[in-house]
């Protein structure tokens, strides 16, 4: 039963990774760049939600919506200011810019909100009508299996987002334009697709999801500080590579696997070594399948 507990916690953490990984994978698929500032957008989202609910007393749902709006705008602005001028530059220049943008966001957050950790409020609670006690989860099998509301909401959100995004890319006009751009930008342009709009849209969607991920992450792990986003960001990037970067189902699979491995390693092997174990698994997977679990290997003609 404890194993089941760990497994659920792992899936919940993995769901957060998966939602973040979507941002990496979509941007990589379409703009062919690694947006390392993505992790820090998560942190901004969490801060916006934190201040909305604790300083302005807005209800949680409004806080989340506000965070989504702010992050969407932030993502588009980052793309316009930092990445768009480098569209023709080498991928290395774009990569360095992305790393710079990541540090910029972290330090700006430190300047604005100080490095003192904030305790993120617990959103997902139910007040018992009879006793008036505030519950943060449900207990099953006489307290052997504990499900926190935060993990239930996280897993549900992940499923909904995955379904929505799959439908979006396969059915909608913009989704198809995105797939066309990811295959051949020049040809897409010659067919009348505005590549700049499509890339902006990708950043908007990715950053909007980052805001949701930020709130979900901080609901389970409530310490919020300017570096909150960087480690989950790197883990989610790993998850995207693990599942096959550029692939949406790959991000889901990679995220969940990474979360489960991390939690199980923490529970049964060693808390300190858990990250090392996660990355060791990644190395082994990439040795066997260099394109990731669901990635397609592109053979280059010589």
């Amino acid at each position, binding site marked *: 039963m404890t194993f089941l507990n760990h497994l659920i916690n792992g899936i919940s953490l993995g769901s957060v990774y998966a939602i973040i990984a979507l941002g990496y994978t979509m941007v990589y698929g379409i703009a062919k760049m690694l947006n390392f500032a993505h992790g820090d957008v998560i942190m901004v989202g969490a801060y916006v939600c934190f201040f909305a609910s604790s300083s302005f007393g807005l209800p949680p749902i409004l806080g989340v919506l506000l965070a989504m709006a702010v992050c969407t705008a932030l993502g588009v602005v980052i793309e316009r200011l930092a990445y768009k001028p480098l569209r023709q530059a080498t991928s290395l220049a774009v990569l360095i810019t992305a790393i710079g943008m990541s540090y910029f966001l972290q330090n700006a957050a430190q300047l604005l909100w100080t490095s003192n950790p904030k305790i993120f409020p617990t959103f997902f609670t139910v007040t018992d009508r009879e006793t008036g006690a505030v519950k943060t989860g449900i207990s099953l099998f006489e307290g052997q299996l504990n499900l926190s509301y935060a993990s239930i909401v996280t897993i549900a959100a992940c499923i909904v987002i995955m379904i929505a995004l799959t439908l979006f890319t396969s059915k909608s006009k913009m989704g198809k334009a995105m797939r066309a751009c990811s295959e051949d930008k020049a040809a897409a342009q*010659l067919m009348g697709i505005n590549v700049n709009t499509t890339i902006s849209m990708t950043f908007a969607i990715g950053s909007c999801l980052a805001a949701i991920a930020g709130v979900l992450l901080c609901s389970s792990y409530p310490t919020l500080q300017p570096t909150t986003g960087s480690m989950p960001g790197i883990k989610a990037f790993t998850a995207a590579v693990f599942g096959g970067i550029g692939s949406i189902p790959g991000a889901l699979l990679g995220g969940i696997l990474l979360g489960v491995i991390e939690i199980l390693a923490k529970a049964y092997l060693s808390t300190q070594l858990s990250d090392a174990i996660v990355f060791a698994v990644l190395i082994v997977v990439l040795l066997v399948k260099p394109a990731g679990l669901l990635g397609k290997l592109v053979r280059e003609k010589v």
Partner: protein
Amino acid sequence: MAKKFDKPKMVPVPSHSIIPERDIDKSPILECSHLGIDFGGLRAVDDFNLTIGRTEIAGLIGPNGAGKTTVFNLLTKVYQPTRGTILLDGMDTSGKTTVQINRMGIARTFQNIRLFSNLSVEDNVKIGLHNQEPYSMLSGILRLPNYWRQEKAAHQRALELLSIFDMQDLAGVKAGALPYGAQRRLEIVRALGTNPSLLLLDEPAAGMNPSETAELMENIVKIRDTFQIAILLIEHDMSLVMGICEGICVLNFGQVIAKGTAEEIQNNPEVIKAYLGTHKEA
């Protein structure tokens, strides 16, 4: 936008063995004057002048490396020209982007096939159609009636366009899974989806056998007659060029060396020299 969409109607066209005498609208859709581009010190195209009539089929030929595809890239603004002007339907295209040029009415295919191979055949065509069927994102998300109406129209239109090449049954197939010849045909259909007034075909018959080429020739003429558009094609297959092009322009080392009808081109000493070289006097 939507109005422009109604223009071409599918009309059954008799098959042609040779091009019948007809009134070709010679009023210019495209006028290039003194067009040129340099890559560093290399003059890839220089002083290129070409006028194409509204329903004319024109050919652009020349030895390898003559600058034919570069001309296409200039016309579609993949490259911005260093010199000269391009008028499309009397409108100056300088400073326009590739996307704007496409909306103004130039569509093209590629020498090496560049389909969206992971998208279905129908979606490839719809990519072009979508820009003429603008419904707002809101009505897309909420699935409002005009979304369904336009999606249905796009579906119909895609099938109609695919039927030019008898490909309507392949609509659901992944484009990358099609055989080579069908991929080439799909590229033409995809380009037609953007509702062009000038269609640029870059080596449409490349890799086709003689019977496929003959069929393609009929289809190119059929497209011109059905949609009443101008077509400019690059081709090395002389039977195709001489068979259907009403005007031919020969390019060598980035410069026009001859212009005229098939007969005039075939007897032009400059052209023969460019293709075959000359005897060196001993």
